[in-house]
């Protein structure tokens, strides 16, 4: 249609057109040129401006930004990626782990914990128990100041624990046993418990047991004020959070000047940012390990989490109430495959409800080892030779549990148990499964306590927990553990409890997944703790 004859037909001179060519990109055969003849100078101008603008936009977008790299000897500004926004920065008003990973650097607790599970002094220099073990008296440091400049005294500790125990605090239940808090003098404070709790000291380690100043309590959610090694410089929701070194910190000198935590929700983008060097530390997912392993510029930190992934069973279900059925299921599940599918192999197989990192851990893996043949036999003995059908509710926000659940469903299918997977929201999981106990089976993680009692107390027959061992075999043992002052004997009790759980199987114990971080090789001093938090106090750059 657009041959030369066409132009002639409409009375154009071919040469005229040539003069009008602006867009060289398009061959002169096209009609676009026609639009740009001299008659259309006006239009040409506007188009020119538009194109120019577009070009400027493109060029400015593509030219590299001039940056002046600091030539300081050793870097002191750390950048770390994180994936989940904190739920405010008030330690007494949330249960979100994402908050505590950050706030542990801003606030201090009376005592701390080392990566090797040792309790160490923090705000308290020392502590003594009364002879009956019902009272603990802390002696506080006298050189601690809040970020607002005021000195911290025992009164602040009293205020903070009362706040932690009040109605608005999600952790109030954990501290119910503390019935009296007495300020003895400015630097001494005594806590009295109602009943003996031999693990009491450990409850002063958790990041929610932080000491806060009363005068700032109103705004802690957005303007945290503590005594910690870092102060909050800035928090821009959805973008980043900057911590600045607290120069009045009572402890050893902190090497980093600032820690910038950048929110990057997507794991692949996070890895990209790490590879170009924008980020110094990032959390690592199992599938990404191969990307960084063996690269001498990076260092991978991998430690078992202080957590267990379990397949909880509802013992009120007709089939699942049968102990033999539960045991058959335990033998039908190949935990290694589950770990491979959900954590790419970065997990440790478990047989009971304590992680291998726990000092009280006892290896129960050999009680019901993977053996599908024997599983079938057991199922036959139980009278379900032809199998049966159960539902499995999986919290879809947690890929780790969904992946594990799918593998398990497949494995159980092989011994004749049909598993219907139902993916549900975390909110639904909490209210339906955990709250209402309206489920057959589920896969979920239980995390983060230092004392084995807190980990295991849910199995008490009267705990009203969704997986409590209603037959009561562990009730007495748990009670004894709580009152046993001798550590060796206590360990024996916890061993017995673990063995009972491994046999009775109110849940099938799957694995302890690993926590993984990858660091640029010049970052030193970063460690993984038994509680889910980061500590930047000791972190430094070597170059």
């Amino acid at each position, binding site marked *: 249609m657009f041959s030369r004859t066409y132009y002639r037909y409409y*009375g154009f001179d071919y040469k005229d057109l040539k003069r009008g060519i602006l867009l060289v990109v398009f061959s002169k055969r096209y009609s676009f040129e026609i639009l740009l003849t001299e008659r259309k100078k006006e239009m040409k101008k506007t188009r020119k401006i538009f194109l120019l603008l577009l070009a400027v936009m493109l060029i400015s977008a593509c030219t590299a930004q001039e940056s002046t790299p600091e030539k300081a000897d050793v870097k002191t500004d750390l950048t770390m990626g994180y994936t989940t926004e904190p739920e405010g920065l008030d330690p007494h008003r949330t249960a979100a782990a994402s908050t505590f990973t950050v706030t542990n650097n801003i606030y201090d607790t009376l005592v701390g914990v080392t990566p090797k599970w040792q309790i160490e002094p923090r705000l308290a220099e020392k502590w003594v128990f009364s002879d009956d073990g019902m009272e603990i008296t802390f002696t506080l440091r006298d050189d601690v100041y809040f970020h607002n400049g005021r000195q911290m005294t025992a009164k602040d500790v009293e205020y903070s624990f009362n706040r932690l125990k009040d109605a608005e605090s999600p952790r109030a239940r954990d501290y119910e046993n503390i019935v009296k808090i007495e300020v003895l003098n400015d630097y001494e404070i005594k806590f009295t418990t109602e009943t003996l709790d031999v693990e009491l000291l450990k409850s002063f380690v958790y990041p929610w047991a932080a000491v806060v100043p009363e005068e700032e309590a109103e705004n802690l959610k957005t303007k945290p004020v503590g005594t910690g090694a870092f102060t909050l410089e800035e928090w821009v929701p959805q973008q980043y959070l900057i911590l600045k070194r607290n120069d009045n910190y009572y402890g050893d000198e902190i090497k980093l000047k600032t820690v910038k935590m950048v929110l990057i929700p*997507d794991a692949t983008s996070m890895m990209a940012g790490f590879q170009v060097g924008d980020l110094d530390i990032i959390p690592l997912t199992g599938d990404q390990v191969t990307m960084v392993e063996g690269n001498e510029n990076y260092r991978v930190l991998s430690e078992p989490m202080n957590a267990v992934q379990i397949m909880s069973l509802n013992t009120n279900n007709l089939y699942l109430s049968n102990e033999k059925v539960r045991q058959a299921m335990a033998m039908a599940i190949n935990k290694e495959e589950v770990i491979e599918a959900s954590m790419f192999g970065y997990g440790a197989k478990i047989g009971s409800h304590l992680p291998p990192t726990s000092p009280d851990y006892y290896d129960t893996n050999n009680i019901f080892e993977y053996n599908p043949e024997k599983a079938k036999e057991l199922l036959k003995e139980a009278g379900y030779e032809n199998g049966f059908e159960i539902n499995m509710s999986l919290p879809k926000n947690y890929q780790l549990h969904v992946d594990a659940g799918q593998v398990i469903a497949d494995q159980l299918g092989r011994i004749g148990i049909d598993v219907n997977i139902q993916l549900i929201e975390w909110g639904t999981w909490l209210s339906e499964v955990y709250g209402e106990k309206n489920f057959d089976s589920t896969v979920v993680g239980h995390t983060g306590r230092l004392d084995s009692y807190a980990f295991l107390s849910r199995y008490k027959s009267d705990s009203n927990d969704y997986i409590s061992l209603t037959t009561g075999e562990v009730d007495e043992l748990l009670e004894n553990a709580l009152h046993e002052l001798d550590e060796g004997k206590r360990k024996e009790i916890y061993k017995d409890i673990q063995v009972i759980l491994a046999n009775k199987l109110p849940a099938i114990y799957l694995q302890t997944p690993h926590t993984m971080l990858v660091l640029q090789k010049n970052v030193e001093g970063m460690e993984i703790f038994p509680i889910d938090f980061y500590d930047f106090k000791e972190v430094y750059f070597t170059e």
Partner: protein
Amino acid sequence: MLSYILDRLKSSIVVLFVVSIITFFVLMIIPGNPAQLILGTDATPEAIAELHAAMGLDRPLYQQYLSWLLELFKLDMGKSYVYGESVTVLIARSIPVTFSISIFAMVMAVFVAFLFGMLSAIKKNSITDYFSRSIMQLGAAIPSFWIGMVLIVYFGVKYKILPVSGFIPIEQSFTGFMRSIFLPSLVLAIGEVGTLLRIVRSSMLNSLKQDYMDMAKVKGLNAGKIYIKYALRGALTAPLTIIGMQLAKLAGGTVVVETIFALPGLGRLVLTAVEHRDIVLLQGLVMFITSIVVIITLIVDIFVMFLNPRIKSFHQGE
């Protein structure tokens, strides 16, 4: 004409009102108690009940709705649970991000779509036409998260000419701003260009077939005038409506791109609100995004009316 605009305005307000009811009640009846979700697995039932009451969730639904609506009129959408900040402030802070990538993306998409759409309509079944149609197919077929990843890997990691992720506000640095929004906008543009190109092409084809085109040719008008003034104008209605719809979609639908590029926009805010069951924030966001959609639709309708007098006269004839 004014009566048409007024009429559209009235129906928009009704729509917004209905939306406010739906938004409120849908978010109220979804399973999961926000108080339980916030307090986690360790809280006592009493603590949950207490927080439930403190959040005002124990009042009858209609009361909650009315007080929420009342505050909404004052542009006060309450305080976000996660951030402890006013929802209005949070939304206001996210708007520049989402709007700049959406608008920049649409500028790119419109430019490419009109250029190739018109060319391929005028030269149907030519190489250009096939090329354009390939763009169409590709744009529609490639998932945005994948293309986003590829762009990050090449431009960010391999050649290091653009930042990998993050957002730089325009007032901080213009080049920084352009660099931070370029890739996300490109990804969005790729997603939208196909649809738009197809519409431009088909409308243009349709309009080229009209009798008045022959008339214009016979009259001896130059081709530029023919294509721009007559063909394009007649073909503009449908693309314009689509552009409006696409813009409206992008206002709330950039969550994937914002997640990949770690941009603090509206989509991310919605996701955070959902993840943390921040009902107050979520209500505010849904209400805001629907309002934007309604407003864009309204503006587009008015534009189209100006372009296409038939709508106007049809309405007046009613």
